[in-house]
Every structure is written in structure tokens, then in C-alpha cells.
């Protein structure tokens, strides 16, 4: 991995810079650090930073930009006419990339020499079987224009990598010498280093924004691709979810949204009463000992990974519910309401259990924020504790509790493992909680795992689903956080 060694080289250079810069500064002060403007280490750090930071930045940007440039140059090589029916440029490009990577792999495994790999001719040699021998499977026979594009792809990549190495090393050396020359006792090394550190801090903080932008963009472009291949009206307003890998799929979000909301509603019906009453008891009635035990114990439920709840739904709750409400003669009540272990109820109940501590600890905080003066006022009038809670504390805490429930709802909507394992895979509109239904997250997982073809609407729909999920949960979160924040300001 040459990039890895390049980074190591840059870091080594920068370490060397640290030692040399420090020594030169000390020498300029006659060996007495008191004559220096800054502490000796700052001079070293200055050289080290000037060496490594710009070079590493160039490296990072280069690695991000190079694929775009190459992609554009290479895709220009593919004539419009050579794109087969029913596919798109991006599909051909993924063939090109795969072929290029395959050839590189063949060279790596010494199956081909570098020279042979460039001299390949699709007419004379069977590239597909050659690459198969080194473990790279190609989807179809290699066409000449694809091979040509792949070769130019490899050419550009390798010359790009060379150029990147040269530029990065050059910039490191320039930074090294400039900073080294500056390492003099008059030089304000500390100020420069601190400004550099500051820039790094800002960079780290902006990564949060970058992540959001990354999330939105990565899903947005693929979603646009999806809408290029599939009618957006069907996605938003259709009523059927029936992916069909031979084409002609009906891909509507509505049945999935229905399943998602139904399961979330059941989860909240379990979690909100239990969580809220637990919070009320803990904050208004429980003594300090009960609180010290019950609160952390309940919070353990929140720390258990969702895969555990998923397994619990699949192997324990589902079969239990089936025994209660299904199996006819063999069941406990002889009912036939349920036909399989996966159902809306299974996933909803288990998700509800997961959300209990989430609701209870949020509500607990919020109830505790209600000023004691209000409770005193009510008790002083002769109200009982429960009257005080129901008629004074809860109404006062209502906005905060609504915020907490919205946060819990957003959690439920975005939860994946429990529904993947407990809800089933059938997309439909139904009010029967004993039937199995599917959710947005479940479909994202199933469309994006296994063999995926990023040129088919059946795969790309996952990005549109993901974007919808993101927008939905983001909206709920923003609203909830706003409500909670307003609520807290009220009593601060």
C-alpha cells in the first residue's frame, strides 16, 4: 500500500524536522533557552508541523479529488453508442473499474507483468477467464472499448499516484526548509505553532458539518440517480412495494412507512406508560436507596446492544406470542390469529422494552427540572402527592415530556436490528398487529446487502429510503431538541 508508506515517510521527515528545528533554535541562542522567544520544543514543533501538515493535507485532498477527475476523463472515452440498452454510463463505468482493478490484481499476483497487462487485446486473449484465475470475477465478456477505457483508467491512476507522491514530498521538503531556516531565537515560534494547532482544532470541529454534508450528499446523488430510473411519483405516492430484479419494480415508500409507523406506535405504547410512570415514581416517591438501585438497573436496558433485542424478538418473544395467539390446536388459547413468529407486535413489544429506559431517564430529568416551589404550592393547599403530580407537575413538564417522546419516536423509526429480525419482510397496509410487516430500515438492509448492482433502481431505492429516513428522523430530532431546550430555558 504505497500511500501508507508515503504517510510514514512524511511522518518520519516531520520527526526529523522536530529534532533539527529544536537544535538550530537552541544553537542560535547560544545553547541558553532563556534567550529564545519561545520554549525550544515550539521551534521543533514548528518545523514538524510545516513539514507534515501541508503535505498530509495535499495527500488527503488528492485522494478525494483524483477519482472524480479520472472518472470524468475516462467516461469521456466511452462513446454514447457503446452503452447497451437498459443500462447507463455508470454501469459501464463500474465494469471499467472492475476490469482495471482486476488487471492490477493480476499484476500484483505476478500473473501478468506490467507490460503484458497493458498489451492485452480483448480480441486475442480471454481476459475474463484469465482474471477469473486470480480471483476476480467479471460479469461479462470484455468489450474493446471497455478494455481501452480500463487501460486509460489504470494509466491515469498510476500516473496520478506518482504525481501525488512527488507533490506531497516536495511540499514537505519546502515546508521543512522554510521552517528550519526560520528557527532563530527571534522567531515567535509559539505563536505560529498555536495558530497551527488552532487551525487543526477548527478542522476537527468542522468534521461534524462535513459528516452531515457527506450523509446528505452521498444519499442525495444516488437518490437523484434513482429518480432518473424510476418515477418519483410511484416512490412517494404508489401503494405497492414489489421489487423485481428483472425490471418493472413497484417501489413505493408508503407501505414501508406504514409498517415503520405502526411498529413504532406499538413500541411507544409499551415504552411511554411504563417509562413515564417509572420516572414519576423514581423522582417523586422513591427514597434515595430505591433510586440508587432501580435507576442504574433500568439504564442497563438502554446499554444492551440492539442485536441482543433482535435475537430476543426472533427466538423468544416471537415464538412466545405465536404460542399465545397462534398455532390453533397446539397453542395456549387455540387461536389462529398469528401464523409466524415475526410480526408487528413482536418487533413493537421488544422495541418498547428497549425504549423504556430511554423514556424514563429523559422524563426523569425533565420532571426533576420542575421547580420544587410548584410542588410546595400544591401540597401546601392540601393536595395529595398524586394530585400534585397529575395536576401540577405533569402539566408543567408536558412540553419536555413531549420532546422526550418525540426523541423516542425518532429512535424507534430508525431502529434496524429489532425490525430486521422481528418484523418480517412483507410490505403491506394492514391494521392487524399479528401479521408480519416490513419497515424502511429493513428494506434498506435487504436492498443493500448481498450482490448489489448500483445501476439498478432496486438497489438505488435504498438511498432514497435512507434519505427519507434521515429527513424524517432529523425533523423529529430538531423539533424535539427545540422543545426540550425551550422547556429548560423556562425554568432556568
Amino acid at each position, binding site marked *: 500500500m504505497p500511500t501508507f508508506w508515503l504517510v510514514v515517510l512524511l511522518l518520519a521527515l516531520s520527526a526529523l524536522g522536530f529534532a533539527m528545528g529544536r537544535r538550530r533554535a537552541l544553537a542560535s541562542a547560544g545553547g541558553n533557552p532563556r534567550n529564545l522567544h519561545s520554549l525550544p520544543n515550539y521551534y521543533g514543533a514548528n518545523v514538524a508541523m510545516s513539514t507534515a501538515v501541508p503535505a498530509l493535507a495535499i495527500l488527503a485532498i488528492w485522494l478525494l479529488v483524483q477519482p472524480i477527475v479520472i472518472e470524468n476523463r475516462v467516461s469521456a472515452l466511452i462513446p454514447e453508442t457503446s452503452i447497451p440498452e437498459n443500462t447507463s454510463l455508470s454501469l459501464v463505468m463500474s465494469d471499467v473499474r472492475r476490469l482495471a482493478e482486476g488487471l492490477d490484481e493480476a499484476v500484483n499476483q505476478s500473473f501478468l507483468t506490467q507490460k503484458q497487462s497493458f498489451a492485452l487485446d480483448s480480441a486475442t486473449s480471454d481476459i475474463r477467464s484469465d482474471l477469473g484465475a486470480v480471483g476476480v470475477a467479471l460479469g461479462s465478456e470484455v468489450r474493446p472499448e471497455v478494455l481501452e477505457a480500463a487501460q486509460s483508467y489504470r494509466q491515469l491512476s498510476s500516473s496520478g499516484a506518482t504525481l501525488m507522491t512527488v507533490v506531497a514530498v516536495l511540499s514537505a521538503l519546502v515546508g521543512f526548509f522554510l521552517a528550519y531556516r526560520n528557527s532563530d531565537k527571534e522567531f515567535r515560534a509559539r505563536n505560529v505553532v498555536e495558530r497551527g494547532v488552532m487551525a487543526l482544532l477548527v478542522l476537527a470541529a468542522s468534521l461534524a458539518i462535513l459528516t452531515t454534508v457527506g450523509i446528505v450528499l452521498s444519499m442525495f446523488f444516488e437518490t437523484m440517480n434513482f429518480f432518473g430510473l424510476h418515477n418519483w411519483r410511484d416512490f412517494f405516492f404508489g401503494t405497492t412495494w414489489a421489487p423485481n430484479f428483472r425490471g418493472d419494480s413497484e417501489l413505493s415508500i408508503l407501505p414501508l412507512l406504514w409498517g415503520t409507523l405502526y411498529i413504532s406506535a406499538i413500541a411507544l405504547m409499551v415504552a411511554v406508560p411504563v417509562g413515564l410512570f417509572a420516572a414519576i415514581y423514581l423522582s417523586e416517591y422513591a427514597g434515595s436507596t430505591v433510586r440508587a438501585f432501580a435507576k442504574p438497573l433500568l439504564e442497563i436496558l438502554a446499554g444492551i446492544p440492539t442485536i441482543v433485542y433482535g435475537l430476543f424478538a426472533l427466538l423468544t418473544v416471537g415464538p412466545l406470542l405465536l404460542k399465545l395467539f397462534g398455532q390453533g390446536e397446539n397453542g395456549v388459547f387455540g387461536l389462529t390469529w398469528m401464523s409466524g413468529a415475526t410480526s408487528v407486535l413482536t418487533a413493537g413489544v421488544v422495541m418498547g422494552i428497549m425504549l423504556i429506559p430511554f423514556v424514563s431517564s429523559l422524563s426523569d430529568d425533565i420532571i426533576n427540572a420542575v421547580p420544587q416551589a410548584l410542588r*410546595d404550592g400544591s401540597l401546601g*393547599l*392540601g393536595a395529595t402527592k398524586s394530585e400534585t403530580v397529575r395536576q401540577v407537575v405533569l402539566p408543567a413538564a408536558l412540553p419536555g415530556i413531549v420532546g422526550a417522546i418525540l426523541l423516542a419516536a425518532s429512535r424507534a423509526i430508525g431502529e434496524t436490528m429489532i425490525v430486521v429480525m422481528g418484523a418480517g419482510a412483507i410490505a403491506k397496509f394492514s391494521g392487524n398487529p399479528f401479521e408480519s410487516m416490513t419497515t424502511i430500515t429493513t428494506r434498506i438492509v435487504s436492498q443493500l446487502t448481498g450482490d448489489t448492482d448500483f445501476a439498478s433502481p432496486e438497489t438505488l431505492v435504498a438511498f432514497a429510503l435512507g434519505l427519507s429516513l434521515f429527513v424524517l428522523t432529523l425533523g423529529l430530532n430538531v423539533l424535539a431538541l427545540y422543545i426540550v431546550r425551550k422547556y429548560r430555558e423556562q425554568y432556568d
Partner: protein
Amino acid sequence: MNTMNVMDRTLETKTTKIAARDVNVYYGDTHAIKDVNVKIEANTVTAFIGPSGCGKSTFLRCLNRMNDTIDICRVTGDILLDGEDIYDKRVDPVQLRAKVGMVFQKPNPFPKSIFDNVSYGPRIHGLARNKAELEEIVEKSLRRAAIWEEVKDRLDAPGTGLSGGQQQRLCIARAIATEPEVLLMDEPCSALDPIATAQVEELIDELRASYSVVIVTHSMQQAARVSQKTAFFHLGNLVEFGPTGQIFTNPEDPRTESYITGRIG
């Protein structure tokens, strides 16, 4: 019926409403109130004065068992309301507090409408048969608390939107809406500006006609202005108790004199 009741009470003047005998209060290991004996009369404003931390608020909160809400608080001795021990096991503090109302230091209206604030007490105690009666109680209480004219047009507005002085008078209206016999006030003016303080003090003087009022105050001037009887607390002891005029002009105990003249406090 209720007005009849009030008239009855005005007749029986100067009877003892609350009698405390050898009351001791402990907060965990701290001995907060030591052997306090005091008699609080009906239709009288009794002021508790004393330096901060002297126990006057603690003692006040014993009178309607608000201290019950604090786990580590323990009370010994007898406190009799109309001859009945309020710390008797059979007494439900909820019923007691309906008879002994309380107004707090900081105005604490509920985040509800003005009407709902005042009607809260009558509702939980079931004092009104129907909506009309409830409205009657609310109006009467607001009138007695001298705030009716200011809020009669906006009874649906939230109580928290009023000014500080109005809020405190609303809290007083809320307390008297349950028809208490005794009204406890814990520094009711300490969070108010001088004008609002004057309004509330005037109100306290009027309330004397119907209730026995106990007021804890920091301000000696306030005690002198509103009360007929004054009790001086110091380090958990009731140092002196007597007619307000006497306490302020001719105190018997040197500690009282030091406090009145500003040497301790």
C-alpha cells in the same frame, strides 16, 4: 353558609387557634427548634422574626406539616389546632393543610390560567357543587386578595404572566379559596418591590378579619406594621413572645433588644 361561618368566627375573638407545647424539630442530627411553646390566636396577625437560620420558617412549616415532605425531618412535642393534635397518627396532612393554608416566599403560581390556579384548591377538596359555585368561590377569593379588579377580564390568561406582586396576591387568593382557618405566610414579600409589598401588607391586615394569620418576616418594620403579636426566634429558641408594641418598644430579653436595635442579625 361560608359567610355565616366567617361571621361566627369574628365573634369568638382572641380564642387560641394553635397551641404549640414543647416542640422540638430535628433535621437529621441538627437540632433546629428547641422547646418552643407558643399560642397563636384567632383573628390576629402573628409575626415570627429573627435572624436567618433561627428556625422561624422551620417552625412555620411544622404548623401545617409541610416538613413531612422532607425525609430527615423529625418533630416532637404537641401542636394543637382547635385542641386537636395535628401530629396525631389519625390526622391526614392533606386534610390539615386544607385548614391551614400556606403562602410561600417566592410567588409560585402554577403554569395554568388564573382561574385554574384559584379553583385548584376547591376542586381537589370538593368545595363546589357545580361550575357556578366554583366561579363564585374564585371571584370571592380574588376579591378578598384584592386582585379581582386587575384580573377579572383575563381569568383565562396564564398566572405566570402576572407581575411579581400580582402573582403573590394570586397565590394568596389561591390559598384562601380552600377556606382555611389559619394562613401561614413564609416571607411573602421578600421577592417583591416596595409598592407590591405595600399592597400585600394592606391585604394581610384585611385578612385578619377572617383568618388567623402567621407571617414569617425578615423585616422588623414589616412585623411592626402588620402584626399584633410578635415572636422572636434566636438559634432555634423562642426568645420572646408578646404584643408587637411591647416587643418593639420594651423587650424583656436582652437578645431581643440587641436584634431590634440591629446588633445581631
